[in-house]
């Protein structure tokens, strides 16, 4: 064979060797990628089994955010959940931030997180700070040219003050938005396509787990609330508003106190079983009337009860409602009293009603909470109740004037009441008008 003929064959052979070497490099690289991927898949499987093993929302969120840092190396992460009114996102858990920003709100369509929620699509952005600076410059030029009116300050968003990169994922359950999972970095271009994939896998698991945990939490909350409120009201609180009614707040309320005259003497002389039977009958009747008039039972103390109106959900004409309930109670208790009297027990109902601002919320300690109202109004109602003679309903001036077209009442007093500096005018409710 001549050299001229062997040339192309030789170069073909070396070309083949090169090709094989190149292929081997590719295979090595793929194997390395595969090893890394299978490691990641293993970790992700572990996380997803952890997530689905609990129904505690806080625990689910802690696992998800813990995984963000431990597994994926994302230092700053947060989970925002959509509020029940469906117009806002609220930070429910965060990791890496100082302060933690929990409770901060984002309107749908506002900023990276709000747009991700509104569009239900993931977003990865790597130059947030510079981008804002650039568009702020454009805005300033438009303002100077008179194209747009000078802007008002836009609300601050939760997250890093100088965040450059963000990767935000909508948490979806069958296309329904549950919330947003977001990671952030002060460095530019901190996230890439692989991060998108990893976040998506964890996010999908998290969405279902968060949804289940929220549903469970809601059922629990409902059970808890039903102890305090009428069933309709409890459901309204859980499904309706974003505000936690157990959080301390101030509201204008009508407060009703009632107790049984002669109860202490009765309890001293009667058998305990007899006392319990009377109380049970009385509580059952009063309880029914409280529910019927949408009152909130604050507490029982033996024969005494405190009920308020206009909280946790506002009601129309709380004073009238309270007076109407008091009259119904008096009417209902009269035959009970007659029956008790026949058995030798001298018992009768006294009621006091006042209206004014009270501080309301959960009072107590972990493991035993009560829904309570504190303020002069509760004291006044209690003192009026104390002054009331058998079958009397005593109300404050404000209650009397609010209910004047409903009932006849006659002024009495002014009364000197314990805990109140000045004598207080009071009114005795005689009965319904007309």
């Amino acid at each position, binding site marked *: 064979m001549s050299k001229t003929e062997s040339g192309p064959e030789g170069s073909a052979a070396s070309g083949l060797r090169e090709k094989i070497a190149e292929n081997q490099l590719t295979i090595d690289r793929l194997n390395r990628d595969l090893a890394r991927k299978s490691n990641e898949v293993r970790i992700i499987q572990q996380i997803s089994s952890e997530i689905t093993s609990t129904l505690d929302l806080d625990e689910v969120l802690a696992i998800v955010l813990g995984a963000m840092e431990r597994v994926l190396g994302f230092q700053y992460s947060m989970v925002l959940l959509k509020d029940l009114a469906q117009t806002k996102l609220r930070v429910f858990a965060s990791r890496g931030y100082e302060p933690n920003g929990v409770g901060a709100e984002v309107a749908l*369509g*506002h*900023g*990276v997180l*709000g*747009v*991700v929620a509104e*569009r239900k*699509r993931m*977003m*990865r*952005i*790597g*130059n*947030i700070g*510079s*981008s*804002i600076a*650039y*568009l*702020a410059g*454009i*805005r300033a030029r*438009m303002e100077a040219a008179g194209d*747009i009116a000078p*802007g*008002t300050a*836009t609300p601050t*968003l939760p997250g890093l003050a100088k965040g450059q*990169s963000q990767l935000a994922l909508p948490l979806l359950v069958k296309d329904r938005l549950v919330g947003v999972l977001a990671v952030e970095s002060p*460095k*530019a*271009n901190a996230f*890439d396509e692989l991060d998108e994939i990893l976040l998506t896998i964890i996010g999908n698991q998290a969405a279902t787990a968060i949804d289940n945990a929220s549903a469970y939490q809601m059922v629990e909350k409902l059970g808890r609330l039903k102890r305090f409120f009428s069933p309709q009201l409890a459901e309204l609180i859980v499904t309706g508003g974003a505000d936690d009614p157990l959080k301390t707040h101030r509201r204008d309320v009508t407060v009703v106190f009632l107790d049984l005259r002669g109860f202490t003497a009765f309890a001293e002389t009667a058998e305990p079983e007899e006392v319990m039977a009377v109380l049970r009958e009385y509580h059952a009747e009063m309880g029914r009337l409280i529910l019927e008039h949408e009152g909130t039972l604050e507490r029982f103390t033996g024969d005494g009860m405190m009920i308020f109106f206009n909280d946790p959900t506002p009601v129309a004409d709380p004073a009238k409602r309270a007076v109407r309930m008091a009259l119904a109670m008096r009417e209902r208790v009269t035959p009970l009293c007659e029956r008790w009297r026949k058995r030798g027990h001298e018992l009768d109902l006294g009621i006091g009603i006042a209206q004014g601002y009270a501080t309301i919320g959960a009072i107590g300690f972990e493991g035993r909470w009560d829904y309570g109202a504190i303020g002069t109004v509760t004291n006044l109602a209690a003192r009026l109740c104390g002054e009331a003679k058998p079958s009397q309903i005593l109300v404050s001036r404000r209650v009397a004037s609010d209910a004047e077209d409903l009932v006849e009442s006659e002024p009495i007093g002014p009364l000197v009441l314990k805990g109140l500096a000045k004598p207080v005018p009071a009114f005795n409710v005689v009965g319904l008008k007309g």
Partner: protein
Amino acid sequence: MGILPDEIKSAMQGVLPSHVVTCSLDGIPNASSISQVYYVDGDHVALSHQFFNKTTRNVRENPRAMVWVVSPEALASWDLEVEYDHSETEGPVFDAMDMQIEAIASMVGLKGIFKLRAADIYRVLSVTKNVEDRIRA
């Protein structure tokens, strides 16, 4: 593997000004800044089309253009020789660009005012890094 290097992505993640030079069919050049150059794949970029202007008109009659992108973090710039291919008003590329613009615009009070009209897709013909340095050197 496409013609665009991985490191160029740092210049294409956000809403940052880049520059584009086009030329009308009768030979009049035009340079303008453009708010978003988006990495589509190794061979394609998308340019934000916010207003109908000389750039959008020129490439529709003469598709060749030059794009200059800068990465402030990498302290590098690239010259891309591109050719206009088509325009998209929906789909994943349009959505991704539109979302980024809306997110930033909403933070400076320009939501609904500064918005994406279309994503113009260009094929990348050549890439040159830091051409300015070479010219100066």
